[in-house]
């Protein structure tokens, strides 16, 4: 029983990193912008979080500062992809290279230092004493509840139950029609891409402040890219994205358990699991069920800059 509880506990932590980044990417892609800079934003957030916590000893300050850094960098990315309409794939890759390289350069001095303070679990009275699940579900750090419940539900309601949500989805599906209906296409794109970037950087900080918790070069290890893939797997829906992230948390923690328990599989092979799993999960459903392609389709204008005069 302890084993399963342990797996679940690690899964929630590992999945949380992916969930936060994936939610950010859902925001950007729903309004029609592919942000391939998630990996770089996560690296920036991860190093910001560690640097801030070393100075202030407050993980909350680290997380907040990472969000702010992501927000500012996101504004630059959004300005260039939305208003200037530069190629989104190139700018995303550039952001990944810059973020990863910059974080590694700055991070040299922080390498290997354990975070002096981390997000630690809070026991919720009564609920945490529920047998079996209580210890796993209700002794987590505060961010877990934010990532798994509050944020996705809020985003789901916003996107699918409000007029503004309809507008923002219209911007991603058919910007020309949205524009004709009087929706400020570029402004909506700009702010959602920016907010998404902030969440991605927050995911990086969550990685170094709650999950690992220390900085080392390559600590992000492709999680940004997995998050981008999860968004496709989740059909661009916030609730699905969080569930998919949790599933990947489970896969990741199985790798850890395998290493800790000396399963007869080499550690690097176990480490391949999340990547291979991601590929399987985005390929198999569309091959197996053709209808999935329509239900889970990407926003129609995804990746296409909007020019009003080219209608």
């Amino acid at each position, binding site marked *: 029983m302890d084993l399963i509880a342990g797996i679940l506990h690690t899964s929630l932590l590992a999945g949380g990193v992916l969930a936060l980044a994936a939610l950010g990417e859902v925001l950007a892609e729903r309004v029609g912008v592919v942000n391939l800079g998630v990996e770089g934003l996560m690296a920036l957030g991860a190093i910001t979080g560690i640097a801030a916590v070393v100075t202030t000893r407050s993980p909350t300050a680290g997380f907040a500062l990472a969000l702010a850094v992501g927000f500012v960098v996101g504004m630059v990315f959004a300005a*260039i992809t939305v208003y200037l309409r530069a*190629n989104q794939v190139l700018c995303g*890759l*550039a952001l990944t290279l810059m973020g990863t*390289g910059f974080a590694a350069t700055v991070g040299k001095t922080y390498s290997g230092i354990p975070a002096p303070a981390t997000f630690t679990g809070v026991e919720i009275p009564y609920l945490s004493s529920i047998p079996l699940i209580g210890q796993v579900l209700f002794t987590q750090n505060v961010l877990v509840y934010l990532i798994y419940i509050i944020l996705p539900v809020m985003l789901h309601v916003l996107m699918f139950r409000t007029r503004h949500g309809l507008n923002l989805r219209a911007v991603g599906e058919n910007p020309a029609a949205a524009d004709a209906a009087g929706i400020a296409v570029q402004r909506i794109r700009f702010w959602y891409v920016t907010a998404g970037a902030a969440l991605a950087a927050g995911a990086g900080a969550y990685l170094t402040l709650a999950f690992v918790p220390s900085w080392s070069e390559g600590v992000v290890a492709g999680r940004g890219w997995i998050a981008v893939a999860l968004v496709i797997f989740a059909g661009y829906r916030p609730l699905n994205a969080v569930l998919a992230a949790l599933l990947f948390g489970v896969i990741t923690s199985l790798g850890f358990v395998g290493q800790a328990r000396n399963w007869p599989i080499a550690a690097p092979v176990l480490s391949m699991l999340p990547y291979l799993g991601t590929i399987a999960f*985005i*390929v198999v459903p569309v091959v197996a069920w053709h209808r999935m392609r329509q239900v889970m389709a990407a926003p129609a204008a995804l990746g296409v800059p909007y020019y009003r005069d080219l209608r």
Partner: protein
Amino acid sequence: MAIRLQRLPSASPAVALAARAIAILLALVTAGLLLAASGAQPLKLAQQVLKSTFGSGFGLEDVGLLVTPLILTGLSVAVALRIGAWNIGAEGQFYAGAFAATGVALFIPGPSIVMLPLMFIAGALGGLIWILVPTLARAYADVSELITTLLLNFVATLLVYYVATGPWLDPGGHALATTARLKHDMPEFIGIVHWGFPMAILLAVITAATFSFTRWGYEVRIAGSNPQAAKYAGMPFRRHLIVVMLLSGAIAGIAGMLEVAGTVHRLQGGISNNFGYLGIMVAVLARGSCIGVIAGAALMAVILNSGIILQTQGVNTSTVLAITGLILFFTAVGDELAHFRIVSSKPAEA
């Protein structure tokens, strides 16, 4: 008379080239300012780079060693771009090619004259197999190749790390975390630069000629710029896509084979030096032109070599990666701006 901006559907080549040059220059200046802000002396560093790179034959030979894999990974990305596919997985295919070539060299006995071509084929096949699943997934299920190819990079990196530290670890125990030294070396061409260098250039020229002068190349170019038109004209889009993507993977695999047989001589983790990711940069700088890849690779090799020269000055491979990203960013912006021209026109009559 009013002055306004007009966007052209395609930029004129001269403006595009000028925008490119300005973008690269601005990116380097920005990088210099950032370095200066962190306490380095960018002008002194630049001087040192120029002196150690172009001041001696040795410097140029170092660049030559770096240029070879960059031409090939750049070509790999550029080839896929021809049909509109993003192969972000050249890094993984590079590892797969190096892995396959090393396997052949370690476990099949034979004279070098036979083994080198065999390793070459193995390298190409390794890269090809590595891109097979993303290719089929894109061709038959329309799954974005961008993400599948990229995720396989991590798998390939782990695979090479695993064999180099585990099953294939040097039994002589002379080196840590690497295979035994391979018995078959690519012969030298000039100085320390091996024959892979002219081969890479030749491959780029052949590919460019194939795209420019054959019916197949023409169809691929049409399919890349307008898939709908290609399908309407009866061109087999899916078949072209599969062939081109597999070719792209094979080229990156060859790069891995040449690196292990010509430069490193052992398979080890980190052998790719980010060549695969830098290949994206090379292809973008070349605007997808297979000949332009050679120039793009030369520029990237000088930048990469600068990082190696400046390692003692606190600049390292991560810094180079960041600077590369900066150049890519400015290039993307410059590319878009090149589409605009200033026109003066009379305001419309009311």
